[in-house]
């Protein structure tokens, strides 16, 4: 990944190979179920809060705890060496091997040895390192690096493994998993017996005992620590815990979160120089800083060192599932990989993957160490922009995902499943909150500090559509509904309301499923190519649908179809002709109701007398010149409108992306808007834009929980319900 170009190619190659992505999706789904079962009866939130507190205390007391660990380990006969970087660590092992005349090291899994490229360093000195963890051995034979922290060879298929084993042993092996595992069992057995040194990692370093802990499944670490005369422990300094109780608490979270196991097959606690073949073992503990101290010192990023390396942040990450760990990571992969790469290998190495995160926060929801990974990534992304400029790095992975409708929508679905644990429990459904979601992640900054962000709806509009009953006999019009991401994934109830109102006006609604995002966010981010692609997808979907009109409930989408698609597709004549044809039929739902159907005359019978105030969305009023229509509909349906001051002043959401890169300005604008709403004394604010709803629901909600923010369509549907 030396250049942006190679990175781009690797993304494209990964996307072109759906086999891996499919496998990772299946794995991700199965993982979620296993994990849920593993935590049954336990309070994950409480457990991870406790773990975070333990790790934070360790961070604060790390110098003292390290000294305690060293003292206790030495008292039990271990030798402890602190390596300031991975080179020092490698050199220590090389010198030790030379001293002992050792030519052969049997290794169990150690991520920090990957970080140190230890095998290569040993090889340069004629020392052979044999990986004995099955996955690591496969990777070693293939000359690759791990693509997952817990399952290093997750990207490989059994046929490839059979090929590698066959090449190594000279006898043909069939690609059956059982056969392959049995082969590894027999073949690697002699490595432990022949090795002069056994090298393991450590999952924890227990300060008050001087012992280490290993959490494993295969049993190879136990053999590596038992058979050879010398045992080397290779571990990062952040593995320290205070005592056995801390360590046991980690073992309650780590296997559950890594693989959905209640406990791994083995947890091995080793302190000091245990007996070996009638003598005393030599145990060397190499503790590696390698950038960790700098990470501890970074106020914004330090929580990353709470990580217990469960790998869950990869399992649930839509980007990881799409492109795999070789693309979305370096030595460490996925969310935590982005952060560790930046600190251990340099920001330059991390610049592409920092941009590749789509901000869905799934990783944050599952992290057992309660690390706000996305927040840290966001911070690093800003650092990257500062250091390397905006345009240099393109968000290639995201781009590929947005263009692939199926992928995009299944990702949103996955994110919606996962956000559960982090959304607020006590709010009503329409006040769901917090998640930076798709495709709004283009907003590079977060403002949750002063306003809440909505969460993704449990069931998107597109997933609900087929079950919405439409009783329209002899419809006067068939209209196509362009839902837009906001109404699709965040406020599907708006679309449902619109259908109810239209049905009552004798209009049938069609929903072409192959429509995709309008592409405006991509364009704002400077990604024209994706914009063109998205426009084509939706133009095709609505051309095929053969409808009388196309309706939107998001004014930005209306503008996109009416104006933008035609411009965007100007270079492709047959496409622009199609776009033109659609343009003249496209309008906002309230404009259609009023101007085409004359709805306010028909709704006259209704009466609720409820007071509302109306916020004009920038794009609706200034983009489509629609502002009388929603008011007429609201009045006709029996609402009293109490106008706010400057009702057509921007709510701060942006409408234009530029506001979003100036959050302070945006914040001020929203504050003004909230005040003018409060000044009316009215408890309901209506608007016709999901974007404004996101902004207003969040900001108004924080200022005054009794004020409700709704889409005009919802109020109309409610009025209908009342009159029935």
């Amino acid at each position, binding site marked *: 990944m030396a250049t942006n170009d190679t990175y781009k190619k690797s993304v494209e190659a990964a996307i072109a190979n759906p086999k891996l992505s499919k*496998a990772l999706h299946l*794995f991700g789904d*199965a993982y979620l179920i296993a994990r849920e079962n593993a935590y049954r009866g336990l309070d994950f939130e409480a457990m991870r809060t406790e773990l975070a507190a333990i790790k934070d205390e360790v961070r604060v007391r790390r110098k003292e705890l390290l000294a305690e660990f060293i003292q*206790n380990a030495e008292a*039990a006969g271990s030798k402890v060496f602190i390596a300031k970087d991975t080179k020092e660590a490698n050199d220590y092992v090389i010198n030790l091997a030379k001293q002992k005349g050792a030519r052969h090291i049997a290794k169990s899994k150690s991520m920090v040895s990957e970080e140190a490229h230890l095998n290569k360093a040993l090889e340069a000195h004629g020392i052979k390192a044999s990986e*004995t*963890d*099955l*996955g690591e051995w*496969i990777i070693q034979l293939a000359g690759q690096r791990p693509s997952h922290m817990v*399952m*290093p*060879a*997750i990207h490989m*298929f*059994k046929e490839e*493994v059979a090929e590698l084993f066959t090449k190594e042993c000279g006898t043909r092996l069939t690609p059956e*998993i059982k056969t*392959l*595992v*049995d082969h590894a*069992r*027999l073949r690697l*057995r*002699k490595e432990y017996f022949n090795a002069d040194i056994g090298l393991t990692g450590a999952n924890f370093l*227990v300060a008050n*005992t*001087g*012992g280490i802990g290993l959490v494993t*499944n*295969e*049993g*190879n670490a*136990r*053999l590596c*620590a*038992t058979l050879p005369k010398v045992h080397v422990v290779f571990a990062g300094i952040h593995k320290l815990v205070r*005592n*056995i*109780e801390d360590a*046991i608490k980690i*073992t*309650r979270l780590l296997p559950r979160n890594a*693989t959905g196991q*209640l*406990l*791994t*097959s*083995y*947890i*091995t*606690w*080793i*302190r*000091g*120089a*245990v*007996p070996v*073949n009638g003598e*005393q073992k030599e145990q060397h503990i190499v503790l590696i800083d390698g950038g960790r101290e700098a990470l501890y010192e970074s106020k914004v990023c330090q929580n990353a060192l709470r990580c217990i390396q469960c790998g869950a942040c990869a399992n649930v990450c839509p980007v990881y599932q799409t492109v795999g760990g070789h693309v979305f990571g370096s030595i460490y992969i996925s969310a935590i990989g982005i952060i560790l790469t930046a600190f251990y290998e340099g920001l330059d190495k991390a610049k592409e993957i920092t941009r590749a995160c789509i901000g869905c926060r799934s990783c944050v929801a599952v992290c057992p160490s309660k690390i706000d990974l996305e927040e840290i990534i966001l911070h690093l992304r800003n650092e990257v922009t500062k250091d390397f400029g905006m345009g240099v790095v393109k968000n290639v992975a995201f781009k590929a995902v947005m263009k692939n409708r199926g992928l995009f929508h299944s990702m949103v679905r996955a994110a919606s499943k996962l956000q559960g644990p982090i959304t607020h429990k006590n709010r009503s459904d329409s006040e769901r909150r917090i998640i930076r979601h798709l495709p709004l992640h283009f907003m590079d900054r977060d403002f949750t500090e002063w306003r809440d962000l909505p969460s993704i709806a449990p069931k998107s509009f597109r997933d609900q559509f087929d079950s919405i009953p439409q009783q329209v006999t002899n419809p006067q019009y068939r209209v196509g509904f362009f839902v837009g991401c906001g109404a699709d994934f965040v406020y599907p109830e708006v679309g449902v309301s619109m259908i109810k109102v239209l049905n009552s006006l004798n209009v049938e609604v069609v929903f072409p499923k192959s429509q995709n995002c309008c592409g405006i966010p991509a364009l704002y981010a400077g990604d024209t190519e994706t914009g063109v692609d998205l426009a084509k997808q939706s133009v095709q979907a609505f051309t095929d649908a053969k409808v009388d009109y196309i309706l939107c409930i998001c004014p930005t989408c209306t503008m996109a179809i009416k104006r933008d698609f035609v411009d965007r597709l100007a270079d492709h004549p047959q496409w622009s002709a199609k776009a033109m044809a659609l343009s003249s039929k496209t309008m906002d739902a309230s404009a259609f109701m009023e101007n085409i159907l004359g709805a306010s005359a028909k709704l006259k019978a209704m009466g609720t007398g409820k007071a509302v105030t109306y916020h004009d969305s920038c794009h609706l009023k200034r983009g489509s010149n629609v502002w009388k229509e929603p008011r007429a509909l609201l009045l006709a349906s029996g609402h009293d409108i109490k106008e706010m001051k400057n009702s057509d002043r921007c709510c701060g959401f942006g409408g234009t992306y530029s506001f979003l890169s100036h959050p302070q300005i945006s914040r001020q604008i929203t504050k003004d808007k909230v005040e003018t709403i409060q000044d009316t004394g009215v408890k309901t604010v209506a608007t016709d834009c999901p974007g404004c709803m996101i902004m207003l629901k969040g900001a108004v909600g924080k200022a005054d929980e009794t004020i409700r923010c709704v889409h005009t369509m919802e109020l109309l549907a409610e009025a209908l319900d009342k009159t029935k």
Partner: protein
Amino acid sequence: MTDNITERFIEAAKRVGAEVLRMNTLQDAVTYIKDTAKGNTLVPETSLVKRHHLRALLSEAGADVFTGKFRNAGELPGAGITFCNFCLADTGTVVLDSTDEEMRLATTLPEMHFILVDPTKILRDNLAAVEPMTAFHQGNEPKFIAYITGPSRTADIERVLTIGCHGPREVHILLVAGISSDLMEN
């Protein structure tokens, strides 16, 4: 209460692929082992093994009890037989002080591992292990404590769970009352 814990332990251990059987007497357990174990059988001389004359009982029953140093028992001996220090009911885990090297070899190398468990040694869950685990680490003697939860396993090829990677492929837990109630001995 104890029985409830025992049931939970049995269920959890079975769920991770261990065989768990209740035995009426130590002799019944010995017969079961003799009938099930194949090949070199490693029985480390621990205090409980001595107290219960386990090696003699097994030899008399006809098991192939290995008499040399376990390093010489081959790369893949048939069976290892041990008592245990204590167990954890919530996860089906057996905890073994394995500081003695013969103990480690007998529980890592063989195809099968038979573990004799006195039900009074089953603790509620892994938090309850904090106390005995801390007790093990008093002073500064070298220590090697093993938690064993079912047979060795891997999912490293295509994420398919496969039993028997580098450790024992079979774990047989035999519950026998009255063999020991001291968590510190095995």
